[in-house]
């Protein structure tokens, strides 16, 4: 069972056992990095967030309480770090508008796949932060509805609302760009 396995590895990682540390990093860093990358739209910043998330995790491990799910806690920390960075970006007076990327939503469009990915990434990163988080957790990662809601500290109903708005907004942005 993943949860008890987590607990065992957390205990051993807290004691400084490298094998357990590596196992936790290998298991969770891809999802944390993916979440931060989608939220921030910037690989370098996402790597910084991932590092900060794990540094906080290592500090928390010795006092870890088994009732919390490590994966949920880790994603929540990463998400809050992303929110902080997005807030700072908004506050920056010299902020420049994000690069506009041409995009077509139709799958049969001749748009190059790499460009399509870039455009979708940019569009997700441009969504309101909670919508981007909901979309990333539910549509791009394999989190259950309950887990995604738990990470975001909201109800499943609120998650559904965010998700619907995110998909609608994303579609509108992508359609607008494809028609431009």
């Amino acid at each position, binding site marked *: 069972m993943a949860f008890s396995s987590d607990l065992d590895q957390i205990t051993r990682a807290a004691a400084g056992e490298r094998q357990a540390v590596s196992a936790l990093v290998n298991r969770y860093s891809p999802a944390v990095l993916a979440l931060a990358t989608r939220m921030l739209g910037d690989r370098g910043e996402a790597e910084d967030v991932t590092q900060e998330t794990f540094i906080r995790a290592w500090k928390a491990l010795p006092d870890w309480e088994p009732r919390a799910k490590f994966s949920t806690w880790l994603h929540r920390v990463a998400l809050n770090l992303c929110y902080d960075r997005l807030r700072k970006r908004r506050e920056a007076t010299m902020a420049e508008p994000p690069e506009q990327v041409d995009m077509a939503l139709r799958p049969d469009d001749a748009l190059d796949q790499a460009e399509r*990915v870039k455009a979708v990434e940019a569009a997700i990163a441009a969504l309101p932060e909670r919508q981007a988080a909901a979309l990333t957790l539910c549509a791009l990662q394999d989190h259950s509805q309950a887990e995604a809601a738990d990470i975001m500290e909201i109800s499943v109903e609120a998650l559904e609302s965010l*998700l619907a708005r995110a998909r609608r907004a994303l579609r509108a942005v992508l359609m607008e760009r494809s028609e431009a």
Partner: protein
Amino acid sequence: MTQTMTDARLIELIEAWGADANAYPESERDAAKALLAEAPERFAAELKAARDMDVLLGGMPEVMPSAALTAALIDSAPRARAERRSWFAAMPRWPAIGALASLAIGLAIGLGTAQTAPTGTTEDPVDTLVYAALGFDTTYTQEAAQ
């Protein structure tokens, strides 16, 4: 729990969770599937739009950490005490080597000086006893005294 599914609620589910009914909340999944099976044409437009979005999002590549990032994450974790000791043990032992070298040089100078220094005699038996108690070789001084 089985719920009654309305067209409006099904459209909400499609818009939020996509075209695949298996992604809908468990409590509403069966009712949603039943309504979709009953009148799929009523939801064709919503399903098409949702499916396009699903395909688009499903085509996003996975984001994988680089080897350098993985190594940095592992290195940022605290190490066990034993590992800290082994790390210390692996350090160059220059201070200890320096101390040993100083001792060796001091001994060499001391011995050299002792050979050239005038040798005194210890005729006093009390002195002899004290020197013997301190571990010095008193036979030399005793022979010299005779």
